């Protein structure tokens, strides 16, 4: 039940995002506006993952609400926030999902990997164990997410230089090995928070236009590329951002 890996546990969970086709439907919806702000050009779904207490929730709070609290309130299961960013005159709505790091939530959190276009994989530079777990988290991404999902590795709590146990170089090296971008960040002192999200959005945009260039068949759903399998279908207009 706690395996978090096998198909059986995956099959149990019913609280799943809709199929990734749903995402296409959420794109380019303009002016429907009943309550929520539906006025956007693109919708990107992002996930923040990593061990418990590395600072995922704080990081998202800093980015979405520009706030920080030192009290630790362990996240139950999964939660999300929405933030709209602008890029080359396009409105990009970010749906940012904050996950709980504990093993007991693995089934529910991995159910949300599927539709995600980008991940922030976070460790705590003052916590060796959280750094050691990065490899495992990366495997989780490979197992449960879309192949083209983009990942940024974030070494958080870089304001705590005195308690540092993971060097910047080791962080950067691991990111290189895994093929991820890398930032050291601080939710507390607001260091590289915005930059991390912006980089991730850039990477997703690059990937979108790249995929469209190399694979014109995508919009029709022809099974010529990996994209067509579980990827969020990319809109015909492409990403000019």
């Amino acid at each position: 039940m706690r395996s978090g890996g096998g198909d059986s546990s995956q099959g149990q969970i019913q609280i799943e995002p809709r199929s990734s086709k749903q995402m296409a439907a959420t794109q380019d919806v303009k002016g429907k506006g009943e309550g929520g702000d539906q006025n956007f050009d693109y919708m990107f779904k992002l996930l923040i993952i990593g061990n418990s207490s590395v600072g995922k929730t704080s990081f998202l709070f800093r980015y979405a609400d520009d706030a920080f609290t030192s009290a630790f309130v362990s996240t139950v299961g999964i939660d999300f926030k929405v933030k709209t960013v602008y890029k080359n005159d396009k409105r990009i709505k970010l749906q940012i999902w904050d996950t709980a790091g504990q093993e007991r939530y693995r089934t529910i959190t991995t159910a949300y990997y599927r539709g995600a276009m980008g991940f922030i994989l976070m460790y705590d530079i003052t916590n060796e164990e959280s750094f050691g777990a990065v490899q495992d988290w990366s495997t989780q991404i490979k197992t449960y997410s879309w192949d083209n999902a983009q990942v940024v590795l974030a070494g958080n709590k870089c304001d705590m230089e005195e308690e540092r146990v993971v060097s910047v170089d080791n962080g950067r090296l691991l990111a290189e090995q895994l093929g991820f971008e890398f930032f050291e960040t601080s939710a507390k002192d607001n260091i590289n928070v915005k930059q991390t999200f912006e980089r991730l959005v850039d990477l997703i945009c690059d990937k979108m236009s790249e995929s469209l260039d190399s694979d014109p068949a995508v919009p029709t759903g022809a099974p010529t590329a990996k994209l067509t399998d579980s990827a969020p279908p990319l809109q015909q207009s492409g990403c000019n951002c």
Partner: protein
Amino acid sequence: MGQTTSKPNSNLFQNSNFFSSYKRGFASSPSDDQNMSLRPSIFSTLRKPPVSKPNDFIPLFNDCISAASSRTQEYLLFKDPEDKFYPSPEVLTQVFLMTYISQSVSLNMTDAFNCTAMTPGQRILLGADWVWAVLEKPTKNPRIQIAVQVLHLPDREDAEENSIPPEAFSESVQIAQKESSNKTMYERMVDFCTSIGKDCYALFLFLGRKSDKENIYGVLSNNFEAAIGKCDKIDRAFIENFFKGSRYLHTPQGMMQAIVTKKEGDPLTLMIKFS
């Protein structure tokens, strides 16, 4: 972080019989509580074994529940004689939760057993209004969880549905609904608990039942999913059905005792009277 230093002695008092007979006094004057906890050595020598037992929060939990239940009961039967003012049933949930949380904070029990209110998005995604958790000592990670969903009297629920204008649904609520497929709130909470395992319980908390509108009841189980196979769906009627027949009603304390003494992996289903 930064909060742990002031609390090393709190368990001592939660442990002792001494404390449990005087805890109401402590609760109403937090400064006394603090003064007492500055002098742990006297009491620690009186007690053996000196290690705090993990289940000492149970009588405190009981206290919090009685406070929350009686406060909620004060408003449970409210009716405007002029029939113009209809407070949202949501208010009852909030009164219960506020009273519970204030009480648990003043009893200083949240290091052992905490209560996390869900965000509006989580309430829809996970189907729970709040989640109680027995915490593992050093890590504070949840060891046992109880996800709670409040059910109101059907006429109140109807009033609520009719009174919410569409624009009240915030964007996050809309997104959460989109994500949560077409399952009922009952099913979402059961799914959530099932995804965690047998140490996560679903508790449906009835603020009044048709047959007894002024009391608070609950159905708790870590095994609702077994019923999904048998029935088409989990709905209110299905949950209320558990009360039919002359089943034994647990006290809140009895419920918690049953939960912490249960063998790992075993199913457990109980009915509780909270007021």
